[in-house]
């Protein structure tokens, strides 16, 4: 299996996808949460809007973004129709970039949820701490950077774990968005395993890849659980 070019593509894609997806989701989610925390007027409505993608399954998200990103009638066509004839946005059909379309759709789906987690964390921070920091002479960015964000540490951990497992198990999104294509350019281990086990009938390679996925997850989750449980004992 390790000699297969397709497996190489699948796991580099997984790494690319996980890193981009998690980092951007956290940044966007945190940014939205901080914006929403500024006591703005229509917070309730906005929060619902940001959370709304969560209500959709990844299949729907994938399908919708397949249309939006389609060069024939999606964003590219709209911008070209606006007069920017040379504009191209063909990531969906570009083997180099196709995995990043999955990132875009994944972020759209998940960052609202991340925002909700961060917003809950922000609301849980005692107002008096912020007052104390402002009397101590900290500017607003300093308060966020030195006081509030470190205070969100437990939320960061939850968010990372949730996003990581979404990233590793992402399958339906990719299938719906571009069916791991073009070719197998946006394959990830999950789609790789599915293709080999159920479409091509090469059960051995399929089960080998599934085992690798299991071991990767164990390698990530066990040290995490270990450190979390241990620090709880010390607290």
């Amino acid at each position, binding site marked *: 299996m390790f000699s297969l070019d397709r497996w190489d593509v699948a796991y580099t894609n997984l790494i690319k996808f996980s890193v981009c997806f998690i980092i951007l989701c956290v940044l966007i989610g945190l940014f939205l949460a901080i914006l929403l925390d500024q006591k703005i007027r229509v917070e309730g409505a906005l929060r619902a809007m940001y959370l709304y993608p969560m209500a959709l399954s990844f299949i729907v998200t994938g399908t919708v973004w397949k249309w939006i990103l389609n060069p024939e009638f999606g964003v590219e066509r709209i911008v070209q129709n606006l007069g920017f004839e040379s504009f191209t946005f063909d990531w969906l059909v570009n083997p180099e970039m196709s995995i990043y379309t999955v990132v875009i759709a994944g972020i759209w789906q998940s960052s609202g949820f991340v925002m909700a987690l961060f917003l809950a964390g922000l609301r849980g921070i*005692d107002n*008096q*701490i912020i*007052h*104390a*920091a*402002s*009397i*101590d*002479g*900290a500017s607003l960015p*300093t308060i966020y950077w*030195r*006081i509030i964000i*470190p*205070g969100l*540490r437990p939320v960061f951990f939850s968010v990372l774990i949730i996003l990581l497992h979404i990233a590793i198990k992402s399958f339906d999104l990719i299938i719906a968005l571009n069916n791991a294509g073009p070719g197998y350019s946006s394959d990830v281990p999950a789609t790789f395993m599915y293709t080999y086990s159920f479409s091509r009938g090469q059960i051995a390679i399929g089960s080998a890849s599934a085992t690798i996925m299991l071991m990767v997850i164990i390698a990530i989750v066990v040290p995490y659980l270990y450190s979390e449980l241990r620090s709880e004992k010390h*607290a």
Partner: protein
Amino acid sequence: MVGLTLRDVRKNYGDVQVIHGINLDIIDGEFVVFVGPSGCGKSTLLRMIAGLEDISSGTVCIGDVEMNDIAASKRGVSMVFQTYALYPHMTVYKNMAFGLKQANTPREEIEKRVQAAAEILQISEYLDRTPRNLSGGQRQRVAIGRAIVRDPSVFLFDEPLSNLDAALRVQTRKEIARLHERLKTTMIYVTHDQVEAMTLADKIVVLRDGRIAQVGSPIELYERPQNAFVAQFIGSPKMNFFSASDLTSGASSLLNRELSDDLQVGIRPEHLSITDSANAVVEGTLELVENLGEYALIHLRTASNVEFIAKAEKPPEVPKASTIKFGVKPPLAHFFDSNSGARSA
């Protein structure tokens, strides 16, 4: 060390006015306590002095400088909060050093000041711990330490003892009093607890619905409350109030005062003493005795169905529902206008 001047300070939230024109002078080095029931605006007023709330109108001066448009960190004040408000992810040392770091104080100077403050508060051994590994009392001392290291000209305390248990409260109260003696800095202290107010203050400001009800030394407030509200708020158990019809027929001459329906008579429970018919000002049937050992609280009800409490050294040796007569020394009776509640001479 500097004093404070508040001139016609007001605060509105939209159309709702919560502070209605406060005028107050605080002298250099004074310990001033803002006291009042919840929602009276005492914390809001403190936050306005601190610079955490905008001042809708009027002026706040610290020293001779008008502070209305000066940022909280530039006012030379330090604040201690009810929930301690320590930075949870920092050690005690870093908590105390944070403000100095923001002000770009040299490292040796920070070290020196933190050590000195830790010494005063006896928290030197905890400097490397994080707040969650400290007890409530220790946390509050760290919070006070964080206030001290900034060497402020005014200390602000926002109900600092409310989250502590009773024993710690008494002890921390003592420490705050000692701290004031040592630093001789102006301190403003907000509380809803009149015992804290009475024990700590040089000057008490009683607030009610965003207005000053009375300003004075603790003993002035106890002995000569300017209105029925202050009379009831200061002192525990609360002062008893009677109208003319609740008192005995001889009360008027015993108290040396013409009684009418426009007048309310206030007598503190500790000033009522059991007496005979000739000297009785008020009488009531015994309902309940709370014997606290040191003293007893006697709950009674007059014939006109007004409840009152008397404080006596020993519980009365009479059965329940029997009538007990009480007298009072005339100077210890207070008279208030029934309508306005203002003191009537």
